[in-house]
């Protein structure tokens, strides 16, 4: 694997629920160490793309490579074992587990207890609030705190590729800003981030590259700077 191998490389991807096609011939690349964003309005198919990568809704055609290795159709736990982690849409806490149990599940495939403790300490450093609340049931945390648990849980897996689905959904502007700052920090530590968002301006402000999905097809793509000035993109996204 050389430096040029994309962290994620998707080509010709088709995914459907039962008979309804949701993704049509999607091809994209996420470079290592960058934030690549996927923009698109409600129902465009963004979450479906993530589900295809994770093997939750396997594609019926096309290829998905993680650092050069084909994973399309692989079982979810095997995809995760390749260094992928996901912060899912809507946080998806385990509400009746404590904060620390939720975090530990993020490192489920890590066998070393010492390493898990080390990662916990790192997460607590990023989110001191979680350290205070470690034995609280996650379901009783506030929305903003749950977002912290969800991000912390994603980081606990020490992934090479972190997939984040609409992290700012339902958060107050202050939290949204804080969230974007944290995501930037994650990238600056060398992780590859694949960020699904609807919040165009704030997303393009931190992203390196991006794509726009509309009705299951990619309608624009390029560097963040290109997207910002791309008329077609504005037409697709706002029109």
């Amino acid at each position, binding site marked *: 694997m050389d430096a040029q191998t994309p962290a994620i490389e998707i080509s010709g991807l088709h995914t459907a629920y039962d008979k309804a096609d949701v993704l049509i011939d999607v091809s994209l690349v996420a470079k290592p160490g960058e934030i690549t964003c996927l923009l698109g309005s409600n129902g465009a198919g963004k979450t479906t793309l993530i589900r295809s990568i994770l093997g939750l809704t396997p594609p019926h055609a096309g290829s998905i490579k993680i650092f050069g290795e084909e994973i399309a159709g692989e079982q979810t*736990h095997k995809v995760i074992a390749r260094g992928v982690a996901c912060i*899912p849409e809507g946080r998806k806490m*385990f509400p009746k*587990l404590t904060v620390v149990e939720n975090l530990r599940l993020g490192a489920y495939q890590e066998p070393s207890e010492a390493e898990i403790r080390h990662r916990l300490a790192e997460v607590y450093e990023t989110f001191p609030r979680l350290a205070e609340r470690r034995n609280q049931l996650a379901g009783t945390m506030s929305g903003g705190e749950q977002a912290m648990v969800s991000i912390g849980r994603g980081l606990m897996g020490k992934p090479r590729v972190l997939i984040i689905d609409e992290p700012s959904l339902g958060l107050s502007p202050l939290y949204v800003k804080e969230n974007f700052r944290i995501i930037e920090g994650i990238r600056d530590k060398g992780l590859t981030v694949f960020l699904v968002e609807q919040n165009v301006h704030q997303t393009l402000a931190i992203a390196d590259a991006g794509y726009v999905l509309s009705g299951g097809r990619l309608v624009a793509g390029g560097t963040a700077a290109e997207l910002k000035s791309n008329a077609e993109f504005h037409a697709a996204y706002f029109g």
Partner: protein
Amino acid sequence: MDLFGQYVINGLMLGTIYALVAVGFTLFFGVLDVIKFSHGDVLMVGAFTGFTAAAGAAALGLSHPALQLAATVVFALAGTALLGAVIAKWLILPLKNAPRLNILLATLMLGTALRESVRLFYPDGSNPKAFPALLPTSAWQFGQFTLRVDSTILVVTGILVIVGLHLLINRTRLGLAIRAVAQDEETARTMGINYTLIVLVTFALGSGIAAVAGVMDGLYYNEINFGMGLLLGLIGFSAAIIGGLGNLYGAILGGFLFAALQMIGAVALPFASAYKDVFAFAVVIALMAWKPTGLIPERASDRV
């Protein structure tokens, strides 16, 4: 006083057996939202496997009861754990997205098939088998009260199994994975949990625990028969329901409660003790009408 003491021991004994059956129902319902009606018959298969292993060990010249007991427990546990995993993999997981009633019916039929197979194919399977007395037959005497060593060992063992299960579910990585799968299958997968493996392990675990109950039952009554799983399965299911299905501690509580009802029915009420099951089930029906979601409703407590 002496008689009362015996009833308490007997009740504890039965309560432990019922609790061990009930936790299986709860575990299965927890991870897969299914009721596995063949659970009692899996228990019966466990008891027969243990019985066969004891006979086999004796035939091989292992005359010491402790060795025969070890063979009984090991084979009963391993056999039913495997059977449970096989049922999960080939019958229940394939039906996962079918209507819940289909799974109920399929496992009900499987239970009948297991029962009939033992009756027809086990040597002289339609007659009860005398389960060997593998535990010490001595007793301690406390004044009026006699405490049998074998009952004591059985109750203590059963309670240790329950405590062990509690620790497994709450203190280990496997237990955490089982609880995660029980709460949210898809997110559990996203954490990197091998969902199918956890389901199979859970079914193996619940079935193995049922085998412990089956062997305990055999050792206590010195008899097993092909139909023993019917009533034990029904009681275990009732115990899980009155405890609030999906709640481990509710199932345990339900098991002891059912045994207590039977004892009350046998001792304290003015009719013959043969009616104890009628009385206990009648109270269970009343309890279900009064608290449809069980004594410990799921909302107020952890699932599994």
